[in-house]
Structures are given as C-alpha cells and as structure tokens.
C-alpha cells in the first residue's frame, strides 16, 4: 500500500524533474531565438506593402489611401512556430530526450512547457514588431505622404493582440505536435492527418451533399474573447492530450 509521504515525494520529484528538463531544454533550444529574430526582420520587408486601400483621382490630382497592418509578422511567426514545434516532435529530438533521466510524461510535459514559453515570447515579439513597422514608415515619409489616424497602438489592443497571438501560436503548435506524434507512430497516418487538417482547416470539403464548413472559422469567426479563449484552450488540451496518449503507446526507442 502506498503511503501519503510516498505520494507527496513522487509528486515533488515529478515537478522537479519536469522543471529540470524544461530548463535543460530551454537552454538547449535557446538558439531558436536567432531564427525568430531573422524571420521577424524578414517579415518587416513584407509588412512594407500595404494590406489594402484605394486609389482614385480627380481632374488634376491623384490620391492613394494605403492601409498597413501587422499581419505579416504574425503569419510568419506562426510559420516559425509550426517549424520549431515540428522539430521538437521529430524523431531526432525525441532520441536526444532519452539521454535525459525521464519518462514519457515528464518529457511530454516539459515539451509542452517549452512550447508555451516559445508561444508567449513569439506572441509578444510578433505583436510588438508592428510598432517597428510603424516607426520605419513614419521615419521614411515622403513630402506627399501623410499618416492619419495615429501611430500609437492602444495598450489594450497590444495586450489583446499578444494574448490572441499566443493562443493561435499554441493552437498551431499543438496541431503540429499531434501530426508529429502520429507520424512517429505511422508515417502515412501522419501525412494523411496533415492533409486532412489542411483541407478541413483552410478549404471546403464537400462529400456528396454533406458540406464541411471551414473548420478555421470555428476560431477566426469567434468575436467573443472569452469564448475564443475557451475554444482554443479546449482544443489545445484535447490535441496535446491526444499527442500524450499516442506518445504513451510508442516503443521506448525507434
């Protein structure tokens, strides 16, 4: 029979092991910051093109109204996140895991904490890059160019954007991680799942009369922040839970 002290001890050990693994992995993967900075600087180039606007003219004048957003930073940061998470779930990285004192669960939880750290950092920097874009545009204004509507981002909008970007990054990372886990079990199943998610997520699938709406809309069309957070957190927990279940069924080392 297990005593209370034993349970407490094992729980403390679990936390300690996870924390040690997390810090070890964080140090080990800290080089990823270079690729994040690089990708965000490259996205600064893309963000120099307006996202929309209008062009019109009169008898003797011509006007352009250009609208700029920070979407490019967030989209490229998402791609970075997907690539980084796929590395984390890859066979090579998982093999390195076995050099640590760990079991499936501690390795998995420390990976999840690492993904969360990257998502928060990338969410903050991806959002704040919009300010750099605005500063570059202000400093490079020509004689016939006028900025209207302000340069500043409202503090609430910054916080909202960081929170939502972090949630999107987490969602994307958990989807990528699940695909990697399924791939580790069965490569063909992993590819099929990737194609399935892409098709259902970004496209419209029609099976006879049954039309599957764009799954992505489940998240992107949600205008209530609370419901959106609930949907994303629920999905992340579900996806990471599935990944954990799958990884638990794997052999020790392949």
């Amino acid at each position, binding site marked *: 029979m297990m005593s209370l002290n034993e349970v407490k001890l094992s729980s403390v050990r679990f936390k300690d092991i996870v924390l040690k693994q997390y810090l070890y992995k964080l140090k080990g993967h800290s080089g990823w910051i270079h690729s994040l900075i690089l990708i965000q600087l490259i996205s600064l180039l893309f963000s120099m093109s307006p996202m929309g606007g209008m062009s019109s003219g009169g*008898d003797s*004048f011509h006007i352009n109204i250009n609208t700029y957003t920070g979407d490019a930073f967030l989209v490229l940061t998402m791609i970075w996140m997907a690539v980084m998470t796929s590395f984390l779930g890859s066979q090579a990285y998982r093999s390195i895991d076995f050099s640590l004192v760990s079991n499936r669960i501690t390795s998995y939880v420390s990976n999840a904490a690492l993904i969360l750290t990257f998502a928060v950092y990338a969410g903050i920097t991806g959002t704040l890059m919009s300010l750099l874009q605005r*500063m570059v545009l202000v400093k490079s204004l020509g004689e016939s160019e006028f900025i209207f509507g302000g340069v500043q981002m409202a503090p609430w909008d910054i916080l909202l954007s960081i929170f939502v970007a972090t949630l999107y990054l987490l969602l994307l990372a958990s989807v990528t991680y699940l695909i990697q886990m399924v791939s580790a079990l069965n490569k063909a199943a992993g590819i099929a799942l990737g194609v399935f998610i892409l098709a259902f997520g970004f496209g419209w699938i029609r099976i006879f009369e049954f039309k599957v709406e764009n799954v992505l809309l489940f998240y992107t069309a949600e205008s209530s922040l609370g419901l959106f957070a609930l949907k994303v957190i629920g999905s992340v927990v579900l996806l990471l839970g599935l990944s954990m279940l799958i990884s638990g069924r794997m052999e020790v080392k392949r």
Partner: protein
Amino acid sequence: MSISFITLSLIILIMIILFSFIKRAVKPRLNRFNQWKSNLLLAGGYLALLILLIPITGLLDKGESFISPNPDKELLALTPADWSKDGQKYHLPADGRFEEQTGLYENSHQTFKAEAPQLKITTAENLGNGQIFLERRGSADGIIEVATYVAPYYASANGAMPLDFTKLIAPPQISLEKGILKIERPIEQSWVFINFNDSFTVRQFKPEAQSAGGSSMMIQGQQGILVRIPSDLEIVSDDNTRVQWVR
C-alpha cells in the same frame, strides 16, 4: 513610400552581416558565458528593444492628427461622421451665391485691374469640372475679383474616419493679360494617405474593423469660379456653356 523594398532589403541584409561580424568579434568574450546565456541576453535585449518602441511610437504622434514632413498637413482634417452618410452633402450653389453656401472652401482670391472696356474669358480645354459664375457689381471701379471655391473632397478606406482633403486642392491658374482672363488647369497633384489598422488578432474582436483592406470611397467635390466685374465691363466668353450669371 520613399523607402523602397530594395533599400529596406539592403538595410536588413547589412544588419544581418553586421550582426554576424559582431558575433564573431565578441565570440571569445561570449565563450566565457555558456552559449545559452548569450542567447538569453539576445532574447531579453530584443524584447526590451521592442517594448521600448511602445513609448517611442507614442512620442511620434505628438498629438497631431496628421504626420508628414509636408507643411500642408495643417490643411487636412478628419471629416465629421455625418458627411459620409448622404454622400455629397455640400454642393456648389446652383445660383452662384457662394458666400451663402456652408461647407465651401475659398481656395484662392485674386483681384485684377480692368485694362479694357471688354473682358474676354478663355478657359483651358482640360479645365475639369469647374463652373464659372459671373456677377456684376454695383460700382464701376475697374476692379475684377476672381475667387475660386471647392465643395468638400473626402475619402476613406477600410472604415477609417473619412479624410477631408478639400483644402489641398489647388485652384485653377488664373491670369489677366491684354483684356483676356485666362483660366487654366490647376497644377497636377498627388498624395498618399497612410493609416494603420489593427492586426487580425485584434480585428477579430472589433466587428467594425473586420477587414484589413476593406471598403473604400472617395467623394469628389465640385469646383467653382466666381468672377465679379465692374458694372460697366462688357463680357465676351469663348465657352458659353461653362459661364453663367449669378441670379
């Protein structure tokens, strides 16, 4: 933008090259730390730099509605919301009584000395939509007054507050030579108006700003020229369709 894609590409390329050189130069020092410590410093520095941009962009605003090196920015205004509700709210008065019409902007006013008992008015073929109104004054003082008026021009994109650029519209070029009042096309003008919209992570929760590009519109106002002549001056015009007397 005055900064081109190529220029910015070069700047970023130079930054990357510089970064790699600096990294190589300080590498012996960095080796004293572990590699992860330098990465942590880089991550912290990068984040601090971006956070620093929050107050900096606040300072760039300077509380002005428009930012531009162009001194004419003072002539711009944000259009009151009610203007855009019924399209062209302010027209040129059909009877030519400009002073009594609200919302019009007098963008030029010139006076000339009448040189002959007759005044011939010639207009450039590509003058545009400008209508000429003639008004005979009570006195025979030999003064010809020419004023040009503009009804509001405004535009908006992406649901942003409409922009009133009426005062930027250049007046026609008007001169009096040998008894001929020449009304010529205004100088060609071109402007770029820039506004920043929220990222999709914020737009999603703001129903009024759902689209990044969004709908856009431009309301083109009318332009009118009022020529006030002395009571004894005879008028000859080569374009009667464009000239009308103030009733």
